[in-house]
């Protein structure tokens, strides 16, 4: 058994038919690691009392300090999110309120889930720039990879809303349109 132990890491014990399967991690009877229970331990009683004292200590500690429990009562209190947490998308705006998006389709191209659908249109008074007439994100398809954010040359789409409880009763309401994505984010929305 000692010889097998050395090449345990290199060989794959389960697959190679020639090798004996290693059972070194299982303590077997007769192994020096095992110890027979002494008489007092064999009666269980004192061991049970030991175990009971552990659980009652937890019980008393927690019953007098319910606020100290690690449980987060979810909808009311939320875990603070890391700064680069990828939540629901939002479309950023210029100072005049128009979308920064120029409908270049880079995000839609980068999207591996194919969940961004853009219809471009042109400003009447500005021949150089396009804008998205429609900008829909099918959040049911989105995998929250953030590639759209990386692809965007105008910093028009971001995932910094910190919203992750995106649920609704219909599929249609989970396809977010331009108006919804451009809405200002309130803290307790």
């Amino acid at each position, binding site marked *: 058994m000692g010889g097998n132990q050395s090449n345990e890491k290199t060989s794959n014990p389960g697959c190679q038919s020639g090798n004996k399967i290693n059972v070194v991690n299982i303590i077997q009877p007769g192994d020096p690691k095992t110890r027979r229970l002494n008489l007092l331990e064999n009666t269980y009683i004192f061991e049970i009392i030991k175990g009971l004292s552990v659980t009652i200590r*937890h019980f008393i500690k927690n019953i007098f300090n319910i606020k100290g429990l690690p449980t987060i009562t979810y909808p009311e209190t939320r875990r603070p999110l890391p700064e680069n947490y990828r939540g629901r998308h939002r479309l950023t705006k210029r100072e005049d309120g128009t979308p920064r998006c120029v409908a270049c389709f880079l995000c839609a191209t980068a999207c591996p889930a194919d969940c961004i659908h853009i219809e471009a249109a042109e400003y009447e008074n500005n021949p150089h720039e396009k804008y998205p007439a429609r900008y829909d994100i099918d959040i049911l398809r989105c995998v929250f990879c953030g590639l759209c954010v990386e692809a965007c040359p105008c910093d028009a789409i971001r995932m910094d809303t910190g919203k992750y409880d995106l649920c609704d009763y219909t599929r249609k309401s989970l396809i977010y349109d331009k108006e919804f994505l451009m809405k200002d984010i309130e803290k307790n929305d």
Partner: protein
Amino acid sequence: MDQIDIRNIEYIFRTYILPYLPLLVKFALAVIIPSVMMSSVAVLAWVERRGSAMIQDRLGPNRSNIFGFTFFGLLHSVNDAVKFFTKETFIPAKARLFFYFLAPALVLVPALLTFSVIPVAAPAEVFGVKIPFQIAELDTGILYTFAISSLAVYGLVIAGWSSGNKFSLLGGVRSASQMLSYEVVLGISLITIFMIFSEIEPYKIVEMQGDLLFGIIPKWGILLSPIAFVLFLAASYAETNRTPFDLPEGDSEIVAGYHLEYGGMKFAMFMMSEYVSMITMSAIVVTMFFGGYQIPFFNTAKLNAVFHPLITAAIQIASFSIKVGFFMWLYVWVRWTLPRFRYDQIMKLCYINMFPIAVANIFITGAVILFLNYRF
């Protein structure tokens, strides 16, 4: 119309009501005790949920509320009751209908019956009439409890068999073999107590436990026969199918056990019978080993010297309830501490370890009693 004579009322009271007062009290107890036990099931379910949560560093169910008041999660039990009553009555295709519906009652009724011989307080003397706080004073005493509680096995086996499901049948068979095995230990371990007090009526045993041993320590059964106490307690856990002996309900092996095919109130009856038999077992442990309703150093005579007999009874009922409450908590506490035994380990523990010790305990106790030639 004659004026109602005040002496006449007293006469009526003395002749027609007073002789029947013990009977009335017994009827009242027969109504109150089962209803208290059945309603305390809801509280026990709450204790089990929140208690286990506290033991495991969790919060436990705390959401259901009335206008924002959660009552520490107690309302979840109320919701359970509503849910149990409004659930669809599902009948499995292969069920044997008569037995399928009979089984939950066969389990619950023995569980409720067994409490009747347990005294909850010492008999109080009011208007010269002795009022017993015990539903039935039987000559067979505690043996009645064992006789009735073993009937619950029929319910479990019939439930397992009549569901027409192999897993529930396995659960029923398991619970039958386990309960029958541990009933032996349960009965034999108590024999030492019967020998020491030379009585089998619970109220007489409790009465004797009010005395003091050597004038210092209360003469409780646990101090006279500690081995019997340990054996009885362990066997009572097996008898009520609680962890670490909860083999009849093996989620991983047999899905749920004998109540697998039951839903709604029929399932709730199995649950209730489990909790009710836990209460009864705790009551028997308290009665036999912890002095029943007795308060240590203050026996009935001493309390009666100070208080009115009815107040004494109230104090003793409170003392009894506290003791039973502790053992109920112990059931929960043990459940969330110990892992469960394997099936062969349970049988070995019963027949190879506990049974011989219980028998040896009888002989040793008998020898000691003979040697001292003295009835404790």
